[in-house]
């Protein structure tokens, strides 16, 4: 089992004229990981566990800090097309994908354009579809530290949250969040964090094996949206976690790992 930073490899892959930084770990059938609106949080329990049997491929979205911004990428659909090209040139289709929040939205836009890119798709509290009850939290009206705190139900009771974000926030961490937030604004300022066309576009992905996971106390993307996702992707399965906010992968990591492994299979 890969455990420790030296098993995480980093490479720069040229896509169009952008040097995309891709972090990779593990071995086996590849799993594309699309990170959320705060950037890639790094090695967590869940991806360490999955990396035992899978090659985890985590590209760092352009403009989120490490990978340079590409001026022409102005929407989540642009970014989805960028990743479609990355996959086309680097990994034979179909590939498994897991996307978190904004990353889930990217995965869904990719599936809506070409569901054949994916073998199986996991969406974790995805943005992209406007919830029928409640609105997606306007985290742009918060400073980054408050946004991070709002992402979990019980920061003090979430050990991995403390490991990731505990203690005083270093200026470098703050800057990294600001990079991610700035690019998120460029991509998703309005309509905020959703695409009204997406539920219609996803009709083409009917039958794509899809698992949607959500925390019942998600304070960022209201879980009422889960039903919309189930309706949009025919055959999608929805798993709701109790006592869980927007980050099931750290708030309910054991259950999350079990569901993920069971769904992905070999």
């Amino acid at each position, binding site marked *: 089992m890969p455990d420790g930073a030296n098993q995480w490899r980093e490479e720069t892959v040229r896509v169009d004229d952008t040097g995309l930084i891709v972090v990779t770990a593990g071995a086996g059938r590849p799993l594309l990981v699309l990170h959320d609106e705060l950037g890639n949080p790094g090695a967590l329990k869940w991806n360490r566990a999955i990396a035992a049997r899978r090659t985890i491929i985590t590209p760092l979205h352009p403009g989120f800090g490490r990978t340079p911004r590409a001026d022409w990428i102005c929407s989540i659909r642009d970014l989805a097309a960028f990743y479609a090209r990355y996959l086309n040139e680097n990994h034979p289709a179909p590939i498994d994908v897991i996307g978190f929040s904004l990353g889930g939205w990217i995965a869904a836009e990719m599936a809506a354009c070409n569901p054949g890119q994916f073998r199986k798709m996991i969406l974790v509290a995805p943005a992209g579809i406007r919830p029928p009850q409640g609105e997606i939290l306007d985290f742009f009206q918060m*400073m*980054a530290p408050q946004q991070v705190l709002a992402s979990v139900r019980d920061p003090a009771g979430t050990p991995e949250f403390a490991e990731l974000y505990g203690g005083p*926030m270093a200026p470098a961490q703050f800057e990294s969040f600001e990079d991610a937030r*700035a690019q998120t604004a460029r991509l998703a*300022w309005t309509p905020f964090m959703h695409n009204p066309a997406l539920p219609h576009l996803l009709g083409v992905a009917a039958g794509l094996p899809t698992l949607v996971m959500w925390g019942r106390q998600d304070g960022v993307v209201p879980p009422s949206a889960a039903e919309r996702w189930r309706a949009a992707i025919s055959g999608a399965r929805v798993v709701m976690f109790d006592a869980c906010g927007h980050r099931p992968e750290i708030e309910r990591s054991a259950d999350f790992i079990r569901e993920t492994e069971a769904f992905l299979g070999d």
Partner: protein
Amino acid sequence: MHIMYFTERPYRAVSNDEVIKNGFFGIPNKHFDPAKGAVLLNEYLDEKILAEELGFDGVMLNEHHDTAFCMGSVMNVEASILARITKRVRIILLGNPLPVVGNPLRMAEELAMIDMISHGRLVTGWVRGAGSEQFATNANPGYNREYFNEAHDLVVQAWTRPGPWRYEGKHFHYRFVDPWALPLQKPHPPIWIPGLLSPETVVWCAQHRYPYIALATFLEPTVELWNIYRDAAAKEGYQVGPENFGYLQKVFVAETDEKARELAKWDMFGGAGIGYSLFGKPQWMFPPGYNSKDATRRVARQFSDPAAAKGSPFAGGNGPASDKKDSTAEERIAQSQIDVRAGAWSDDHVDIEATRKQILDAFPQVERAMQVICGTPKTVIPKIRKVLEVLRPGIFGFWQNDGPISSEARTQNIRMIAEEVMPATREIAKELGLVSPFEVKPGSRKLPASGIPESVGSLAPLGS
């Protein structure tokens, strides 16, 4: 020297408690009474007529949204009226927030109409809009600088390039540009740029040969900023002079120093006061992507440590600049503004009485730093001389009457400044050779033979 009059046109009927609780941005508009607004807006227009009658060269307006701080939500409406009801003064717009307006062609038309109706008295200027404005108008802060640059270029083109033509830009697209509203002044009205010492903006001004107007900033970083302008101008091949610089100074005058101070201290709740601490909470002042990478780094230092984010709205706002010795001039200038504006707003319960006292208690410090000059004419003139000697601006704005100040006191202030302070100011400016952009074209001075540009401002007079 060009001397102008400026006030933020505050909505003075707002409760001081609400300002302390919220900052100016984000006070629920149930606290706004249009009947009182109607009286105030007309009063502010009348003040401009008075300023003209009393001999000011220009009347300056600005624009802010969703705030009791400034009632100029659509400044061009006020400017349009002034174009007709005044006869002589320059109408100076500092500035239109290009990124948040969203339609630069419409902006070009509006301003051209104002210039024609005023028979060529418009001076126009551009700003990026405060952070809060991006929320108030839903302008994407991640593209703020791009919107600004593109909209500016488009407006100038719309004024100067014979139509019809087609425009395909990154953010703006027009299939038919042929406005039948063109400025009377050729090639276009003067453009001045106001700011709070963003080095990026200053360099941009130098490149475009636009005068830069510092808005009541601390003197020391302002001089350093002049030097950044000077160096950027030298790269463009010209020597800066007073015509490249303007300064807005808060001045309150009364029959006695005590009376003037009593008025001026309320400015702490109205205008910039000790800075923009009361303008809005940090999450509204620093929207994502609004700042450059360098500025974000400075914000990060302010906000990354939760301990630093506690305390009064004035935390960190007491010094003219960061005292870090190893920082560059640009960093110190920008940090001084971040310190003042960030103000570290705690989300905890606000003790209104304690905060009010703290704000008022900080006034002597503001006065010492000459952020506000107040007193009898005899007291204030030497201080104004000092500011003029340090900064040597060709444009000077008297900024006053912000905060809950009565109509009578406002009028008296304007009168006393015009009649008893302005003549002396003109004399000092003449003695110091402070020429305005109307006397010497900005960017027209030649560099010295050595190629090394000369400074305009100097801190030396502060030492005397």
